[in-house]
């Protein structure tokens, strides 16, 4: 390597070559599908869902490649790689190389994909390319400068992404042509200028860090709310309570803070905009209730690791040498997840209390409540269903926090990646494919519905068998407590499922008993028992390598 720039680029390639190869493979495969005519366009000229899925994966992977941070083993929070500070390279080059490489790469990737991805309006390709380049700058600068925010960086970056997306839609809003301030050239100029300013701020920040400057100047007071948790002054009653405190301090607050951030930054403003729209209010209400569940999916991937946010999957020696069994260590994680999910639910309830009692248009909500009251002839049934919805939200949130413990605590990189990729693919597929269409296809023929029920029943049998195997080595006191929690959670989901199906207009030729059977089976599958039971054995393998 003849220059520092080449070495820095090689560093990025070396660390993410697998991701780069996957991006190249997905892009090539998409091109081959086009050339071979295997990806017919729909009426609007959009690509088929599979191709869209490949495109989304490519862009997500590219952002992963240019996540130019490294986590320290102690905190697990990624930050600008400080090992580079000792290189005889200017701070400007240290910052500019990944930023330029990132922006050029995302523009090139967009050029390769632009004919295959839906654009959502008449927005021009150069404008979208510029927005993506700006987003890459904001993304990298945010990762480097907002380190003290910890997991809240995800919220901040998510909000930035939403704002950039909204800016991309502005020129297409009526009237057409838009006023000068909403024209593509004006917005492009603004975004380019803003990207340059953000880059300069990031450069200044990294240069300051390199010369021994503190990080607390940026967002110091807000960061204080993340790390300034009261000190532990009194002793602990037991080893389990001490370790609960430790786990809670390490990973417990991530989910509630993220949920609160999303409610404040995204749902709150959206609810104000939709304050006169009853249907919009109803839609936002469902999004609000779903927020902890959706956030728990990515947070669960970090939470279930032995050290939150760290790439190192081995159990930290600090924990491994404590005289606490693997059963107890996993039980602590499960309890912390429950506490985290409970506080997140309380945050949602508090937000709903303020929103629904203040500026919400409740016509839509009242309409649904009236329908339920008419169906069950009691307003208490409405309250009961509302309570069941909140409880089910809590259960599903908790479920996503603990369901990957078995694969993450194993300390096996391949197992961790495979299970993570499968969840990510499932989440992206849900976003890309029309789930309603699939459901309609299933219920259209009774034999399809019956087949799905049989598959679900077999899955329940497999799950119960695995659970029996997994739990037979675990201390009975843990089993007794968990089985009560599992039965309660499952009963809650079954009850809600049966009640909700009763209100749904049935389509296709399936009868209500089939829906209810499927609901019960899905509820039995939803709350993990086999996977949680496997976690202590997997943790033990990690602890005693």
């Amino acid at each position, binding site marked *: 390597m003849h220059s520092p720039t080449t070495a820095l680029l090689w560093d990025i390639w070396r660390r993410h070559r697998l991701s780069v190869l996957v991006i190249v493979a997905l892009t090539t495969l998409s091109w081959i599908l086009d050339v071979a005519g295997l990806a017919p366009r729909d009426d609007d000229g959009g690509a088929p869902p599979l191709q869209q899925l490949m495109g989304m994966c490519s862009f997500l992977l590219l952002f992963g490649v240019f996540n130019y941070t490294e986590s320290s083993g102690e905190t697990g929070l990624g930050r600008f790689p400080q090992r580079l500070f000792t290189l005889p390279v200017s701070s400007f080059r240290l910052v500019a190389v990944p930023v330029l490489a990132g922006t050029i790469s995302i523009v090139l990737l967009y050029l390769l994909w632009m004919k295959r991805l839906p654009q959502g309006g008449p927005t021009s390709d150069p404008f979208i390319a510029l927005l993506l380049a700006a987003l890459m700058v904001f993304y990298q600068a945010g990762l480097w400068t907002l380190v003290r925010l910890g997991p809240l960086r995800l919220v901040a970056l998510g909000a930035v992404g939403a704002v950039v997306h909204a800016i991309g839609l502005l020129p297409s809003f009526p009237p057409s042509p838009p006023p000068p301030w909403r024209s593509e050239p004006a917005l492009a100029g603004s975004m380019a200028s803003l990207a340059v300013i953000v880059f300069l701020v990031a450069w200044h920040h990294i240069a300051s860090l390199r010369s021994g400057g503190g990080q607390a100047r940026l967002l110091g007071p807000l960061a204080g709310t993340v790390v300034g948790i009261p000190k532990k002054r009194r002793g602990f009653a037991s080893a389990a309570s001490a370790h609960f405190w430790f786990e809670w301090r390490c990973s417990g607050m991530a989910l509630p803070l993220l949920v609160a951030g999303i409610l404040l930054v995204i749902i709150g403003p959206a609810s104000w905009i939709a304050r006169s729209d009853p249907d919009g209010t109803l839609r936002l209400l469902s999004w609000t209730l779903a927020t902890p569940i959706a956030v728990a999916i990515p947070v669960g991937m970090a939470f279930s690791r032995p050290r939150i946010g760290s790439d190192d999957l081995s159990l930290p*020696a600090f924990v491994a040498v404590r005289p606490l069994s693997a059963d107890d260590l996993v039980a602590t994680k499960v309890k912390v997840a429950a506490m985290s999910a409970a506080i997140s639910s309380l945050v949602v309830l508090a937000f709903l209390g303020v929103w629904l009692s203040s500026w919400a248009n409740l016509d839509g909500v009242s309409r649904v409540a009236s329908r339920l009251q008419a169906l069950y002839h009691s307003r208490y049934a409405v309250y009961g269903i509302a309570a069941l919805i909140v409880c089910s939200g809590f259960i599903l949130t908790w479920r996503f926090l603990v369901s990957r413990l078995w694969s993450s605590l194993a300390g096996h990189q391949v197992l961790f990646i495979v299970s993570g990729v499968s969840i990510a693919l499932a989440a992206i597929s849900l976003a890309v494919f029309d789930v309603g269409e699939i459901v309609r296809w299933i219920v259209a023929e009774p034999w399809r519905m019956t087949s799905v029920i049989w598959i679900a029943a077999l899955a329940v049998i497999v799950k119960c068998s695995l659970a029996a195997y997994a739990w037979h080595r675990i201390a009975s006191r843990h089993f007794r407590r968990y089985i009560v929690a599992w039965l309660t959670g499952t009963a809650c989901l079954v009850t809600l499922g049966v009640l909700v199906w009763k209100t749904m207009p049935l389509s296709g030729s399936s009868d209500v008993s089939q829906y209810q059977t499927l609901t019960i089976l899905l509820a039995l599958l939803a709350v993990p028992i086999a996977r949680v039971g496997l976690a202590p054995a997997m943790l033990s393998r990690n602890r005693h390598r």
Partner: protein
Amino acid sequence: MREHEPLESASEIAVAVNHLSRSFGSRKALNDVSFTVPRGRVFGLVGENGAGKSTLIKHLLGLWRAETGTVRVFGLDPVAAPTTVLGRIGYLSEQPDLPGWMRVDELLQYLQAFYPRWDMDYAEALREQFGLDPAARIKTLSKGQQAKLGLLAAQAHRPELLLLDEPSSGLDPIVRRDILEAIIRTVTDEGHTVIFSSHLLDEIERVSDHLAMLHEGTLRLCAPLDEVKMRHRRLSLRFERPRTEPPRVRGAIAVSGAGRAWTVIGDAASIDRPAIARDGGSVLDDSPASLDEIFVAHTEASPATAGSHLRAVN
């Protein structure tokens, strides 16, 4: 300390390792290692980087599972009974791996919950002795202060076995002195056992009463320290004619030099002095070898030579 040395009873053995082997890929990190450590001894473990010292200590902690062979700590398998074994062990590594967000007093309270024998008065006394601010976050402490805190954490429950994995590496003399004093205190005041790995042979020599030397995963030497020093001799040889290759001396572990002057480090009992004379050499000086010289000799010796010496010593 010798592998087959009879002990009065099994309860007198703190650690027993039998034919322990461990590989990482094609590299043998530990190769058929066997030794026992009686209670109340300070067991010094030496070896160059990558010799297998940390791997061995991790097996004693149960953090590594024995591929072949067995590990017993107080008669228990640390993998099968981690809670019982770890409750009796204090552990300090080169990098204490303490959570940086925790405050010093929080750490003490946290650890207290795990160990029934935790002595908070003793912990406070050590904290004051080490000059640690109870309100300070661990991440704000210097490397030396973190090492002291790690030592405090390893000691305050008065463990029956103190495992120190290169605890003084990269630390200043004051901290190293504190660590050595802690080792001495653990043994003299409480009669507990210490296993102490280090690069610093003068530290080993100062506090250890037994010595084990690992080289490329193989136990080259394992004996009481006095015996090791007594059995190793350093011979300065002078030959009548310059030699182009080292003299072949039976019982030698390492031979170095050039021309007429050669130095031999070997086993006092088996060095063949008449053969040296027959070869045209004379012994100018015959003195006890230093621990440094013994270490270098065993590290540079061929496995065959070292193996023969191990048999001779043991």
